[in-house]
């Protein structure tokens, strides 16, 4: 590990300036992913700007009935918050499906979103990886590919985003609030994470020094039922093979609204827009759900070892939609 300066930031704007002005600086929040990367040599900043003492650790109800979540709120505290448990079960369930009890006490709201892929080649600095070292090649496309993407991959990168929490933000149509070198910015969560394209080294659309300060959730009508279901290689403490976040609103036997996002299948949480368009206004019969899944997965192009994820995400989505539309959320 390279010699390292560490400072506790005292206000947001100086933290932003510190990282924006130095190509070798990085924000440090909970550190559960970054400290591991320092040890592994995946990243080697010379200066850490620690944001954990900034006043960004509160959860507040907003005037419109939504929720504003500070960037340094710990994942465990967010999942345990009374409003989250009652009104945003999809988010509580996604958070509780992630990591372990200890890590949820450490990991923050912003840090969870900015964690990097767990692709074994990204974390092994002796192997080529375009995300870690642009232009070096992708080892996962021909190598160990059990965790690879099935949608939206590029020749340069076939990895998936590891966060469960992010998948829930996708169906909740959350807003990201940032402070950056050019001031404050608010934008839909859908614009935060990107597909790899030719630049897999960039996970997000944030610019250097831009700091997530809060996540805002719009109100979720009481009629909307939502949940999160994660499938993994073992019962607990593992990343998703596939996961499904869904929210539905019924109008009699029909779906007045349906929102679905998938984890474990792409470089970012995959909002299933074509599936939603196909199902909206329909009765959620097995046949209608199959047709909607066909529409969404037409573009699936899995590498051979990840081909199992296509039927897995189909069956998991069908099960989740059946349970939600039957009124059995879990």
């Amino acid at each position, binding site marked *: 590990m390279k010699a390292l300066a560490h400072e506790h930031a005292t206000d947001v704007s100086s933290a932003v300036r510190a990282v924006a002005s130095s190509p070798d600086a990085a924000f440090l929040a909970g*550190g559960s992913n970054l*400290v591991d990367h*320092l040890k592994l040599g995946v990243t080697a900043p010379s200066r850490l700007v620690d944001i954990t003492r900034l006043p960004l650790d509160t959860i507040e109800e907003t005037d419109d009935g939504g929720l504003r979540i500070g960037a340094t709120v710990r994942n465990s505290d967010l*999942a345990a918050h*009374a409003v989250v448990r009652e009104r945003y079960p999809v988010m509580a369930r996604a958070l509780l499906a992630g990591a*372990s009890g*200890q890590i949820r006490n*450490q990991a923050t709201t912003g840090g969870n979103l900015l964690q990097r892929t767990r692709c074994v080649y990204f974390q092994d600095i002796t192997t080529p990886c375009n995300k870690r070292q642009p232009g070096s090649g992708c080892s996962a496309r021909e190598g160990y590919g059990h965790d690879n993407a099935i949608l939206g991959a590029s020749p340069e990168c076939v990895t998936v985003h590891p966060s469960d929490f992010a998948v829930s933000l996708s169906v909740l149509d959350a807003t990201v609030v940032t402070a950056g070198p050019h001031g404050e910015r608010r934008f839909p969560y859908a614009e935060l994470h990107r597909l790899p394209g030719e630049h897999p080294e960039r996970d997000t659309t944030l610019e250097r020094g831009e700091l997530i300060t809060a996540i805002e959730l719009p109100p979720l009508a009481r009629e909307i039922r939502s949940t999160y279901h994660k499938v993994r290689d073992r*019962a*607990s403490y593992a990343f998703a093979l596939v996961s499904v976040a869904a929210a539905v609103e019924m109008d009699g036997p029909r779906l007045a609204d349906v929102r679905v996002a998938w984890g474990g299948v792409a470089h970012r949480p995959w909002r299933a827009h074509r599936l939603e368009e196909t199902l909206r206004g329909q009765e959620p019969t097995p046949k209608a759900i199959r047709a909607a899944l066909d529409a969404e997965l037409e573009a699936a192009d899995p590498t051979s070892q990840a081909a199992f994820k296509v039927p897995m995400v189909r069956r998991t989505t069908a099960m989740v939609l059946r349970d939600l539309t039957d009124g059995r959320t879990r």
Partner: protein
Amino acid sequence: METSITLTVDGAERRVDVDHRTTLLDALRDRLGVTSPKKGCDHGQCGSCTVLLDGRRHLTCLTLAIAQDGAEITTAAGLADGDDLHPVQQQFLDQDGYQCGYCTPGQVCSAVGMLEEVKQGRPSHVTEDLTGDIELTDEEVRERMSGNLCRCGAYPNIVAAIREAAR
């Protein structure tokens, strides 16, 4: 680069100069001689380095000591009240909740922190009703303790020890 930090460890205030790269685990074990938290994987995957940090269960291998300046740390060695073991420690003995013992200090700290979370009514991944009361079943204990591995496989007795301690 070194900085002097203060940690309160099992009730005693300790001052130590740490290189900024030092993890909290290495500061405790190598600099302060506090060997109760164990180094297993050193990558946050096994839980053997778990302590109570400002009252909550926390890994020490994935955090820098400098970032925890001023923290209050309780290790498994600091849980007993004189000769009276903490109920969780006593139940690990009574229920034979270990074999080699290497993961045990982390298991014990994690269990103490976890039982406090249950007392606060915090749900887990396997809790059916997110807003209801929590019944501490075997399934709940296993899910909540999934961040602590035991390579001897003493899991059934660890679950029994934690359930007994929770009575």
